[in-house]
């Protein structure tokens, strides 16, 4: 080889070592804005490589980047903690309101009890009318009124349900 440094491998090492030599303090340095963008992963691939490369050789920027990284990390941790606390509070509120809504859903309401009572009275009246009202058409032999089971049972069932619902409501009020 004609190169005084020796082999090609040696030349390559010398070249890389020379590029890695630290720049003087008065040399060009990274701006804080670029460091922040780098730490936040907001730089394009090429610029990221440039920041990494400069930091590899520049002690000043390396120290500054580490310091900014620590601050950003601490703030991120604080924000994460706050976000977790907010989430927990929101979750508790949600659970509490859901529980409240749930109990309200199944609670006896006055309007439901009154509605049930009205239905009970109407059903009972309809059932009585239907049993004892004269039938149209031919009267069966013997002249007795037939007891009509078709809808009568349903009327009385609804009446019974309404009465039970009203009783349950009155009992809860006590």
């Amino acid at each position, binding site marked *: 080889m004609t190169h005084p440094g020796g082999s*090609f491998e040696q030349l390559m090492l010398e070249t*890389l070592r020379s*590029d*890695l030599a630290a720049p003087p303090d008065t040399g*060009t340095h990274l701006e804080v804005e*670029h460091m922040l963008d780098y730490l936040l992963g907001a730089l394009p691939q*090429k610029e990221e*490589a*440039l920041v990494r490369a400069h930091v*590899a050789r520049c002690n000043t920027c390396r120290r500054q980047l580490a310091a900014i990284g620590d601050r950003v990390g601490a703030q991120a941790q604080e924000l994460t903690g706050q976000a977790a606390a907010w989430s927990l509070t929101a979750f508790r509120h949600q659970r509490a309101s859901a529980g409240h809504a749930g109990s309200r859903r199944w609670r006896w309401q006055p309007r439901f009890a009154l509605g049930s009572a009205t239905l009970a009275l109407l059903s009972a009246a309809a059932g009585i009318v239907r049993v004892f009202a004269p039938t149209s058409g031919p009267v069966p032999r013997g002249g007795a009124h037939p007891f009509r089971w078709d809808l009568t049972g349903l009327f009385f069932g609804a009446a019974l349900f309404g009465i039970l619902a009203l009783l349950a409501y009155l009992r809860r009020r006590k």
Partner: protein
Amino acid sequence: MIGLQLEAADVRLAFWDQILRDEPVDIAEIDAELLPLTKGASSQERIAFVMLRSCVAAQQSMSPAMRRNLRAALIHWFSSLGTSGDAASAKAVDAIDIRSLLGRKLTWKESARMVGGNPEDYSGYGRLLKQLQAAAEDEWVRAFGTRAPFTEETS
């Protein structure tokens, strides 16, 4: 290049960093950003430019195995530079970038393993060096029109 105004060494190291990480490097970008800086520059600056450009040019025609050899060689070289105090920490290298490698003193075997290459293929390193040297000599002639100062004597 970009918003950062740094020195030629920074720009070259950024390209080396990209090769190390197996990121695509555009040779036209190297020409645009670094070739103008070689006019009137020192021999050392010119050699640094030619070394980088020839590696990227050679890389484009390399087999996947040889590309791994190139990355392993860069890992080996960068890890041999700097002092042990430069090593970011005592733990194993978890990122392939220049800063993490400095001062690690990794052997060829360790370097080849890091890029998924064959750690037993020592001849691969020799072949790579030959290929890079030939490429660098060609690049020098192409860029500066003279014989490269590191040309091997063929007497």
